[in-house]
């Protein structure tokens, strides 16, 4: 394996790149479990800071999870029929609509948040409720859901499959339930994981929309960096990692699977 110089060079570059990405992460995580960061690891390891994070920010962790679940439900309710409609009627108008749904991807989160504030900012009850953040998250994640399902649906002959079911006596609702949803499942799964991951990690938009009583996980993270000791902020990063990394891995797996089917 180490016979040629090129191989050695390749390995060195790869390891260097890994170190570049991993070392800061590991340092940050270590800082979260070190008794005193300024004295270093020699001061001993502790879970004290992690408990402290839980005490201070458990609410934002639960809020983030709640938002992610609600966001998932809403994007499914809107996204599945939307993707189905676009797949059933391909054409210029559908392409245009698809681009329109995808617009929030191109517009910075801050601009999106500003627009929401301008429109709904005066509606006090709505402005200060968690549903306001939910609206932002749905706007931002919907294109991922729609595109993910649409890619899978567009890869099969949906019209003929439904006609087949219709000649066998299936009503429009039965066709949707028995044919469309099961065959769209890989896309639904990939889209769902993407939506949950994005919703939990979203900062830009949420930071603009949040109120002091409604901090999500990433907003809480920014808050802890700004106002707490470094160990607490680092422990917070650790908690964040534990939540987001498994989701990220599941998302990768589901997307790869959906892409394979779409081919």
């Amino acid at each position, binding site marked *: 394996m180490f016979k040629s110089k090129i191989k050695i060079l390749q390995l060195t570059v790869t390891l260097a790149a890994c170190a570049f990405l991993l070392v800061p992460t590991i340092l940050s995580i270590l800082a979260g479990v070190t008794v005193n960061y300024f004295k270093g690891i020699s001061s001993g390891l502790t879970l004290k800071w992690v408990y402290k994070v839980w005490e201070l920010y458990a609410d934002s962790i639960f809020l983030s999870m709640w938002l992610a679940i609600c966001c998932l439900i809403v994007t499914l309710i809107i996204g599945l029929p939307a993707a189905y409609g676009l797949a059933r009627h391909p054409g210029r108008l559908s392409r245009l609509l698809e681009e329109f749904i995808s617009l929030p991807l191109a517009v910075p989160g801050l601009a999106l948040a500003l627009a929401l504030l301008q429109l709904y900012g005066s509606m006090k009850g709505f402005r200060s409720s968690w549903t306001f953040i939910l609206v932002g998250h749905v706007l931002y994640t919907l294109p991922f859901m729609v595109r993910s399902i649409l890619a899978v649906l567009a890869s*099969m*002959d949906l019209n*003929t*499959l439904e*006609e*087949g*079911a*219709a*000649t*066998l*006596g*299936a*009503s429009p609702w*039965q066709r949707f339930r*028995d*044919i469309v949803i*099961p*065959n769209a*499942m890989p896309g639904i799964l990939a889209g769902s994981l993407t939506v949950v991951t994005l919703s939990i990690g979203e900062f830009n938009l949420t930071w603009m929309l949040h109120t002091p009583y409604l901090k999500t996980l990433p907003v809480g993270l920014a808050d802890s960096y700004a106002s707490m000791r470094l160990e607490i902020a680092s422990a917070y990063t650790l908690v964040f990692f534990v939540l987001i990394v498994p989701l990220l891995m599941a998302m990768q797996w589901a997307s790869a699977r959906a892409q394979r089917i779409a081919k």
Partner: protein
Amino acid sequence: MTLRLTNTAKTYPDGTKALMPTELSVAKGEIVSLLGPSGCGKTTLLRIIAGLENPDEGSEIWFDNDNVTSLPVELRQVGMVFQSYALFPNMSVRANIGYGLKMKKLPKAEIESRVTEVLELCQLQKFSGRATDALSGGQRQRVALARAIAPRPRMLLLDEPLSALDAALREALRDELAILLREFNITAIFVTHDQDEAMAIADRVAVMSEGHIVQSGTPEELYRNPNSAFVAGFVGNAMHLNGKCDGKMLHLEGGALVLPKDGAGQNAFIRAESVKIDDKGTLSGQVENVTFLGNHYRIGIKGIMPDTLISMHSGQSAPKIGQTVKVAIRPEEIMLLPEGVNKN
């Protein structure tokens, strides 16, 4: 079940007339083929019968004594085999076949026993647990057929059921399909562009062109008594003897022929098997190409008419390319037909 269509037409929103007002009756247990080139309206007609396409105002579709014109597809109780088969990829072979029975809300035990029965009939027992994408083309076709007949539909509709298969398999499955359809003892309509397929499977063939049924009859009737140049050309590949007509004589580039009767205003057609290479023949032309086909030769002869005249020659040896040959055609084998498509 008998099927009766009256005044059935289809105009698409963009104004395209896919189907001109058409009358069609199919008797109980009859197997009818809709034969025609692509774009002739045969698939549109089939989809209208199935309920997948809405016909124009004034059309009427009768299943026995029920007017089903405005009945949606899911209530029409027709079985359909699609060109692409449209098997549900999310279900096993067994679940595909059982789907129509499930939609009828039959008890589980009855579904099971009927699926097993149909699996046996179509010789699919071995594949019942498989996913549909783990089947060969021929097996998929059988599953599509089994799924369509399992709910005991009033009528079976097949849209080019063999065209997705390769040539060798198509011929074998053609005969198998003909046998199965008769075993089911069901009224069936199937659409094809392949005259051999139509001849092999159907009791009656309806030849379609440009949105019309131009002639309908048994395969023998269509072959022996075509009512138009189109039918003669499409069923049995008749060739147009393009020349000048003078009473009972037809003058071609390569000589003159006697017609069975006065040919004024009509076109003369001949089939390749009626063109004989014979030293006593009145026509002469040059051999352009020779194809050996086992028990006979297919010989192309030029110089007799503007197009190449094809002869099916069943001798032990064939003339060489470039050789001048004499050709004889018996008057009674010449078909005299009105010009163009006969629109009834």
